[in-house]
């Protein structure tokens, strides 16, 4: 079939679980929901050599979106946004300050992932104290402390703005019991697309939103097929039945790159592949052992064989491209068996064993687990691979009830957020239970510095602590890849994918 | 109907038996109606009647293989109908049964010796040598050799199998043997062998037979007394000669007349009798 007589088709290897922006945790869910909701501000973009447009997450380069302009108070705690006049939801309701207030408050109070991002790991007192409607075109965000990266957060799906009227019409939210309707429907769109049809785990059809205040979507209609079978994805990509194929495993991307059906867009992502370890309990609480483990992983081979080159290496609490990343500090660890054996001996644990929790449904996980197991057993660490279904994997991981877990992470795009989330002692969200002396003070200090450049020394100090502690094993940072049909000329990557700037 | 004479080994009085049938077993079909019979010690009672008239059911009741509805069965003066199961089982030492189909009534997985030995084991004969002796003796009595005893029932012809079944019944030296159509499944040429054996054994061991059969000729040949059953009732009961020569019930007459090759019967009589 030629690409002309069908809608712009995206084949996506994912299983969405929820499309309520306040509720979603996973990156793919976020991306999908992003298409239907406007945000106050937008990220700036760079164009790569291969022509792919990549969003930058630097807080210094935030662009206006629904908010035409904004002012920040001296102490960095009050943000006042001036909204675009006449913006409307797809159903014609006004897209005004009240809608903004309602949406942000909903995300904050729902008690799920949405709140997490906005509140930096549910700190006390909450980061966002209040959202105030000044007039229908003006809204003020009151923070409890300075946090320059709040704009970056608002530029992503957590800043989604939806129609309070329609949500209320479909059942109020109650605490802990979310509006079930929103889980598989979208409230009237404020974003570039409207959701026309949605068959979970099967397909969705997106229609251009004529009332969108920004640049109209490139394609009138976008069809998204949710296909998890790799052969299907590959076959359809080959036959030109999909314009964009997302989520293909690297070896398939590698293979397709060499065929003339398609081209490959790739961009540095914020998705590290790590082995998270419980820093407080079990054998993995032993820092020497953790360090030993980091030194007996065949990094090069993994990047070569598993990631097929679509990866970069680094070692640190957050990946490159997150503002605040320090290249000097984040030197990748290397395979050194001698060192590793010595470290195991120093750890004082006899016949160490660790449990490696995996979710075998995710691509390449089995392969990675196999490689890790082999590598670690060589230095005398016995590995029990513990397979879990996606749900119980997520539950166990998020509640911190695991030894170590192989994980494809989606990192936040804000360094301070990442550090807080990962290093705050006793936080529910510090699911690795990393608690190092002195970090609390450093984190507090970080919260008092309004400017990113001034934050850097503190970030570096925290990073060093993290490194010393060998808190996590970072295997690599995966590059985002998309296989595009030959005639797709517009493609933009950001951590919350929006399809509106994709097209032929 | 004659009442059972006193001094009979087995006395059946007013036996009633019904089976449940129909939806959820709600309907009950009465199979036996007030059956009253007696078997004299050392003699044979022939029980004849067409198929489904309740002959086998009577035998089952006597053996205690099914429960009765009402009535009494006395064996050697002992009431059987209210016995407990273990008592009933131990009583079977002196009552045994031979079934119609010699192929079906012998467990094909047992050798002849095991089959004949089983009643002894069941009734607590612990001494293997003693058991062996009695098995050998019984087998010899029914005309089977020691060598044949090691074979399985399948290796025998129908007549021989029926001998095995008889040996199994006899090994406990019972007083009463219930024979449920023991020759009906056999060919004429073999039938005589078994009938002869049964007659011999009765003379020799003073056995009492309740002999169920539907062949009138055989009944007459073997029985001292005959009872004719029809639709669950005893319609005729008396000594063999009485029943055959002075047939009182029309059904018995029709049975007698229907035997092919016998003298030609009158058609009218037939019409009247056939309402089955």
């Amino acid at each position, binding site marked *: 079939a030629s690409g002309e007589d069908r809608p712009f088709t995206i084949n996506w290897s994912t299983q969405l679980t929820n499309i309520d922006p306040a509720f979603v945790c996973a990156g793919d869910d976020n991306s999908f929901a992003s298409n239907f909701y406007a945000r106050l501000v937008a990220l700036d973009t760079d164009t790569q050599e291969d022509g792919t447009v990549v969003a930058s997450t630097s807080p210094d380069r935030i662009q206006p979106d629904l908010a035409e302009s904004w002012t920040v108070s001296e102490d960095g705690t009050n943000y006042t946004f001036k909204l675009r006049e006449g913006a409307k939801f797809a159903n014609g309701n006004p897209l005004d300050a009240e809608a903004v207030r309602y949406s942000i408050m909903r995300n904050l109070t729902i008690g799920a992932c949405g709140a997490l991002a906005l509140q930096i790991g549910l700190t006390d007192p909450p980061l966002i104290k209040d959202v105030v409607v000044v007039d229908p075109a003006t809204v003020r965000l009151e923070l409890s402390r300075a946090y320059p990266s709040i704009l970056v957060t608002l530029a992503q799906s957590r800043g989604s703005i939806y129609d309070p009227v329609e949500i209320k019409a479909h059942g109020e939210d109650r605490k802990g019991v979310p509006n079930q309707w929103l889980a598989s429907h979208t409230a009237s769109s404020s974003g570039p697309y409207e959701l026309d049809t949605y068959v979970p785990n099967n397909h969705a059809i997106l229609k251009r939103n004529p009332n969108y205040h920004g640049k109209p979507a490139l394609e009138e209609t976008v069809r998204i097929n949710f296909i998890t079978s790799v052969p299907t994805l590959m076959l359809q990509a080959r036959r030109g039945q999909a314009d964009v194929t997302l989520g293909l495993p690297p070896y398939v991307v590698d293979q397709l790159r060499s065929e003339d059906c398609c081209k490959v867009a790739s961009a540095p992502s914020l998705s590290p592949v790590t082995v998270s370890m419980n820093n407080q309990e079990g054998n993995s609480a032993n820092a020497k052992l953790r360090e030993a483990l980091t030194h007996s992983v065949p990094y090069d081979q993994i990047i070569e064989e598993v990631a097929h080159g679509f990866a970069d290496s680094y070692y640190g609490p957050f990946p490159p491209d997150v503002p605040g990343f320090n290249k000097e500090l984040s030197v990748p660890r290397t395979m050194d068996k001698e060192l590793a054996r010595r470290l195991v001996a120093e750890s004082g644990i006899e016949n160490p064993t660790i449990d490696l929790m995996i979710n075998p449904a995710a691509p390449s996980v089995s392969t990675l687990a196999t490689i890790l197991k082999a590598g670690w057993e060589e230095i005398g660490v016995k590995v029990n691979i513990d397979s879990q279904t996606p749900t119980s994997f997520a539950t166990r991981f998020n509640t911190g009830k695991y030894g170590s877990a192989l994980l494809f992470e989606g990192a936040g795009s804000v360094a301070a957020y990442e550090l807080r989330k990962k290093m705050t002692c006793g936080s529910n969200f510090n699911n690795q239970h990393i608690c190092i002396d002195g970090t609390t003070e450093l984190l507090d200090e970080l919260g008092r510095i309004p400017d990113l450049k001034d934050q850097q020394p503190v970030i570096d100090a925290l990073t060093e602590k993290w490194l010393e502690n060998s808190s996590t094993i970072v295997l690599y940072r995966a590059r985002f890849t998309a296989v595009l049909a030959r005639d797709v000329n517009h493609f933009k990557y950001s951590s919350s994918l929006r399809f509106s700037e994709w097209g032929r | 109907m004659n009442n059972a004479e006193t001094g009979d080994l087995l006395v059946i009085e007013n036996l009633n038996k019904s089976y449940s049938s129909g939806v959820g077993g709600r309907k009950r079909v009465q199979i036996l109606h007030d059956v009253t019979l007696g078997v004299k010690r050392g003699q044979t009672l022939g029980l004849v009647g*067409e*198929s489904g008239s309740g002959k086998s059911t009577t035998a089952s009741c006597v053996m205690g293989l099914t429960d009765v509805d009402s009535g009494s069965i006395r064996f050697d003066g002992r009431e059987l109908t209210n016995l407990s199961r273990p008592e009933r089982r131990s009583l079977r030492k002196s009552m045994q049964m031979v079934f119609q189909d010699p192929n079906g009534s012998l467990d094909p997985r047992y050798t002849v010796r095991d089959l004949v030995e089983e009643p002894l084991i069941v009734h607590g004969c612990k001494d293997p040598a003693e058991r062996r002796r009695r098995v050998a003796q019984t087998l010899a009595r029914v005309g089977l050799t020691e060598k044949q005893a090691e074979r399985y029932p399948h290796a025998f*012809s*129908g*007549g*021989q199998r029926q001998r095995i079944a008889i040996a199994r019944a006899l090994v406990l030296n019972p007083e009463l043997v219930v024979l449920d159509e023991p020759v009906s499944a056999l*060919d*004429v*040429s*073999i*039938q*005589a*062998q078994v*009938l*002869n054996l049964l*007659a011999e054994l009765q003379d020799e061991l003073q056995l009492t037979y309740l002999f169920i059969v*539907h*062949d*009138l*000729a*055989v009944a*007459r*040949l*073997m*029985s001292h007394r005959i009872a004719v059953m029809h639709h669950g009732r005893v319609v005729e009961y008396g000594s*063999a000669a009485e029943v*055959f020569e002075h047939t009182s019930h029309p059904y018995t007459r*029709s*049975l*007698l*007349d*229907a*035997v*092919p*090759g*016998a*003298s030609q*019967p009158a058609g009218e009589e*037939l019409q009247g*009798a*056939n309402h*089955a």
Partner: protein
Amino acid sequence: MSVNTEAQVHPVRAQQLESILEIGNLCTNFDLPGSTVRAVRDVSFQLRPGQRLAVVGESGSGKSALAMSLVGLVPPPGRVASGSVKLRGRELVGLGDREISKIRGNDIGLVFQDPMAGLDPLKTIGSQFVDAIRVHQDVSVREAKELACQLLSEVGVEDPRRRINDYPHQYSGGMRQRVLIAMAIANDPVVLVADEPTTALDVTTQRQVLELLEKICDERGNALVMITHNLGIVRQLCDSVNVMYAGRIVEQTSTDALFAEPAHPYTRALLNCMIDPRTTLRGRLPAIPGSPPDLSLDEVGCAFAERCLLGSSQSLCHEQRPEPVLLASGAISRCHFAQTPEGATP
């Protein structure tokens, strides 16, 4: 019965001219894995129009196999191995399905032993009847039905017009057998073969069915081959008898001769075994010792020798197979001693 005085002339040839059905050296085998059951062994006889021939013998002697061989219906793995079956001079063995089907039902009617299983339980009596008629007669369904009703009333089914639409399970065993008989004679066959038609029936019903058969043969004048192991039936219904033992016909004789002067020791033994309800008194019965031979083995000598009062002691009987001998009485007997004084006359 014409008696041929030339003792050594083959019996088949002797009555060739007038016979309607002629069976010559018929052998029927069941091929089992590893062995062959030779159920019918070298059987020859012929049937004249109107003759009523009984085939008697104990169970497993090959009676049914013989009956089936006549119309080529031996169930697999059985097959007619050799020999011929000639109907009015036309060879039936080896005919194709289509050809022999024209004979079945039309020239040779067959009645089976088990009336309960003989009718398709899913089809009405009428439709099965119509099928049976229309294969041979070019009539409409209506006419066929009409004919069927006539036949049914002829065999004593009351209210045939209503009952013809009934299903077989609505008929009693005796009535089913009547229906089967009616179907078998629907196309006026010249030969009616009845394979133990009454064995499965009650004594009283048995008698009625026999009378029906007798009536039919009287009225239609067809030949009858009656297979039975009941000598009483033979006496009542048939004029001549073939006695089978272990797949062979050991005696061919007339009914009268059979009862008066049985020629073969087996026949005599069989007669002895009959228990007459009117005359016999309790006592020792003359039994035939032993049991019939295994038909998958080849017989050496006379198959009956083991059990024979005469032959068990004779080495001749154990070593040499007896040939059929024509006796003065007109009977043909397969016994070495058929003509000895003891054998020829009682």
